[in-house]
């Protein structure tokens, strides 16, 4: 492994005896170690080559895209001429859509701030670590609770005219209803799947649907003055 050196390393007499840690494990508390016998592959070369191939395929796709589609470039920045609508990059259009309904403190500071905090604390919630289906236990109570939350959210969104965000909310509430009346051994595969979803899944899925819908609406369905437009009619 190592090339021969032209010197020899010796252990001097001044070397101290290193301490030994002695560990007593009593029989009653000895840890149970589950050993899995599982096939593994070497990172080099097998995994690295695959990763490189995956990256290469993506680069080829991006190169093709760059050959056929040009990045947009408009006229030089002009502070006196505001385009209508002035849009943020696509990944912020969900937030911009929220800004249309709520004051900037809520839509621009509170909502993204809470979102980031929520994302960070996700793994530190130790409730339901086994990820059991939400409605498999205390079905009546949990169904009532989730319908109250969904109902309150719907009324809130309705009150502020956020009709766009209503769709995902109603959709997820409907799926929850279906899940509550499905069992883990339902003959229907989709209902079986829903019945086994934990609470975290429902919240994240609602967030994902809202993210997709709001971003899509902000990108394609908003015109001058942030009014509703149909993209195929322009």
């Amino acid at each position, binding site marked *: *492994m*190592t*090339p021969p050196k032209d010197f020899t390393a010796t252990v001097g007499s001044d070397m101290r005896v290193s301490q030994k840690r002695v560990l007593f494990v009593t029989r009653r508390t000895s840890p149970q170690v*589950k050993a*899995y*016998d*599982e*096939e*593994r*592959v*070497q*990172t*080099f*070369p*097998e*995994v690295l080559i695959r*990763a490189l191939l*995956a*990256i290469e395929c*993506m*680069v080829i796709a*991006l*190169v093709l*895209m*760059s050959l056929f*589609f*040009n*990045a947009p*470039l*408009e*006229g*030089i*920045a*002009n*502070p006196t*001429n505001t*385009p209508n609508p*002035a*849009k*943020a*990059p*696509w*990944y*912020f259009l969900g*937030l*911009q859509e929220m800004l249309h309904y709520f004051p*900037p*403190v809520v*839509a*621009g*500071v509170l909502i993204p701030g809470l979102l*980031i905090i929520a*994302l*960070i604390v*996700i*793994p530190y919630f130790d409730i339901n*670590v086994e*990820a059991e289906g939400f409605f498999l236990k205390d079905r009546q109570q949990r169904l009532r609770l989730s319908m109250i939350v969904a109902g309150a959210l719907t009324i809130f969104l309705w009150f502020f005219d956020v009709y766009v965000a209503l769709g995902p909310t109603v959709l997820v509430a409907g799926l929850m209803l279906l899940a509550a009346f499905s069992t883990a051994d339902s003959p229907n595969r989709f209902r079986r799947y829903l019945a086994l979803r934990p609470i975290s*899944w429902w919240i*994240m899925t609602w967030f994902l649907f809202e993210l997709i819908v709001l971003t899509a609406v902000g990108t394609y369905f908003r015109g001058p003055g942030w009014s509703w437009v149909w993209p195929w009619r322009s």
Partner: protein
Amino acid sequence: MPSTIDTYFEKLERTRMWRSIFRSGRGSSTLHNALAIQQNVFLHLFPTKVRKRMVGLGATWYLGTLTLGTFLLLVITGILLMLYYHPSVPQAYSDVKDLRFVVSSGLFLRNLHRWAAHAMVFLAFAHMFRVFYRGAYRAPREFNWVVGVVLLLVTLLLSYTGYLLPWDQLAYWAITVGTNISSAVPLIGDKIHFLLLGGNQVNANALLRFYVLHCVILPLTAVVFLAVHFWRIRKDGGLYVRESEPGTASAQPQPASEERK
């Protein structure tokens, strides 16, 4: 002539120079393959072995790998773009125009940077949702999830600061809309707004600040957190596997000797 190339390569590997650079030594045994990872300053972040069922496309969809790929592509194209760009008004805009019409392959270079940037934002989001739905954020991987959230924010900021650099109408007003939100922060909103832009509105100072953020501060931040992110995968026990999934010994009991072929 593969045999000749092999011979040359073997000779190269025997040279004093090669051996002084690569600590893992020559050979293709399991030990040498492991040392190739473990004895390399960059690769040692990764584990030397990976569970076989995590290598397939189905487990991870390679979303994290691809996000890293877009980042590397963006660094390369970004450095090349920097050679033609001055972060000043109105020079910035004419530089970008020159890239489009004068510089050889400039249009292609800018296109690639732009589309890779969009791809990186999309892939980072996709990676996050994929990790969540697999449940891979759970203990002991909590902190790596937090590092991932930080990296997502850095990705968004990188993309957003880059958005201003062409200094066209699209850039100017997107940044105006975005930075106005910072004024809404209670009490210190106007101060943050001023700090971000170096003025009360998007101007030449803002362009310079965004340029420095985009080309120096944020990429360095990303590299540091990326290193932690990869290193933690190894430290936290490799890529997450669900015990319920087929492939574990508990699900398919097999004698150990048969599994190793």
